[in-house]
């Protein structure tokens, strides 16, 4: 049994009802999908009991019907990684901050707020980071207009009329 399967088994045992989806991506890498309200509990367990000490990355994705915050954790002792997708409803983009466990969450959370407009509750310093403070839009959302230059359109799309 691989490392990621052991971790998944322990998570299933501890949180039988909370995991919406769980899978093994490749040897050493597991993935679960959860609701946003269970994030803190599961991440605390991942850090304290399972030893995922490094929060690599926080990526926010706009799937049009929902937002997803994707957290990547690393355990340095054996190099295994873990991905947690937290689902956020589209009309209420709030999620709990992880700053109290990982101080490294501060900048990525500010970035996700800046570009995607996800509000991290209880974040001590939630301000814009890359864009100017008076900017009024969230550019990585899918409803933010993106100019598609003609040369970027593939030949197949031109033939079929964009289908």
């Amino acid at each position, binding site marked *: 049994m691989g490392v990621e399967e052991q971790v998944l088994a322990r998570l299933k045992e501890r949180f039988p009802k909370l995991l919406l989806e769980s899978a093994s*991506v*490749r040897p*050493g890498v597991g993935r679960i999908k959860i609701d946003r309200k269970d994030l803190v509990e599961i991440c605390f367990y991942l850090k304290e009991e399972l030893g995922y*000490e*490094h*929060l*690599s*990355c926080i*990526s926010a*994705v*706009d799937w049009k019907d929902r937002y997803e915050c*994707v957290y*990547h954790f*690393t355990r*340095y002792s054996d*190099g295994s*990684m873990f*991905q947690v997708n937290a689902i956020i409803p589209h009309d209420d983009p709030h999620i709990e901050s992880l700053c109290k466990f*990982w*101080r*490294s969450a*501060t*900048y*990525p959370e500010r*970035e996700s707020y800046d*570009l995607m407009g996800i509000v991290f509750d209880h974040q001590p310093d939630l301000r814009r*980071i*890359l*864009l*100017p403070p008076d900017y009024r839009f969230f*550019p*990585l959302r899918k409803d*933010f207009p*993106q100019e*598609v*230059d003609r040369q*970027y359109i*593939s030949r197949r799309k031109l033939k079929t009329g964009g289908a």
Partner: protein
Amino acid sequence: MAEFWVNMGPQHPMTHGLWNLRIKVDGETIIDAEPIIGYLHRGVEKISEVREFQKVIVLTDRLCYVSSITWSHAYCLAVEELMGIEIPERGKYLRVISLEIQRIASHLMWLAAFGADIGLLTMLLYALRERELFLDLIEIMAGLRLNSNYTRVGGVRNDVPADFEKSCQRVIAHFLKKLDEYQDLMENSKTFLMRTQGIGKLSKEDAINWGVTGPNLRGSGADVDLRRTIPYEVYDQIDWEPAIEKDCDCYARSIVRMREMRESCRIVLDALKKMPPGPYRMKPPRRAEGEAFRVTEDSRGEALFYVAADGDDRPYRVKIRSPIFCTLAAVPQMMRGHKVADVVSIMGSIDICVGEIDK
């Protein structure tokens, strides 16, 4: 004494790019610091969403102009994972060689900038002179010196010429001699030691909690090198040692980088010896669906690409984790209690690259 804020930047020799470091001082002592970034934000993540998978490589090349191959390589690895393809063995070796040559070039750029920052102006000239030799090697491989556009989804763009191994051996033999000289120059310089030893301490636990990675983390005594912890390409078949120092200060971080250059030379020579003949590139599928991520050891730390696709020939979302962006969050902690003159050595030792911070 009254406390007040001082702007170190956006135009300051210490910044190595366009960003601003605000420091709160009480006399000469720093009480707090706050990095202000975003001057170079180009929206790479947004532009990637309307370009096809292969065309994004041009953008990821420009994330960091001193280590472009490592960035496009991280992107290609993530897309290959997404498409579920395995590239030919020779392609993997060629990637490793190009990555390590790029790492040496990047570290030499750091050495030049760091030397100039803390008063070893000779280092600037020496390091840039030697960097030129490695850029020439990249030019032989890829045709371009800086934004080389060499890695492709599915392999690398072209094979190396027949006499490439000889050129590499010549450059590396020359460089290793010079590197001894530089290390002497650094270790025996009173100025250098006084300005780096005991400055900018960051303990191992703090470094991990702040998300500091790469040479800065190894300078804090953590045995973490993603090339060995999470092996990618063929790093597990090549014989090398990660460089780890235990002092947690600016001096340890710079010694880690000097030792890493030696290790990179060793990897290049070993990879050239073990490289098998055969194809170096394969044809990847046009479309992909799902999500994938890969981490690599960039010259500055952990680079992570998270790519999601919805079955189109373009990525739906590309997320870039820039190592220096996260390291910058730990800067206030490293600075507190030091003098204003130490800002330069602390910022120099963590090796800033603004292009990848601002994306």
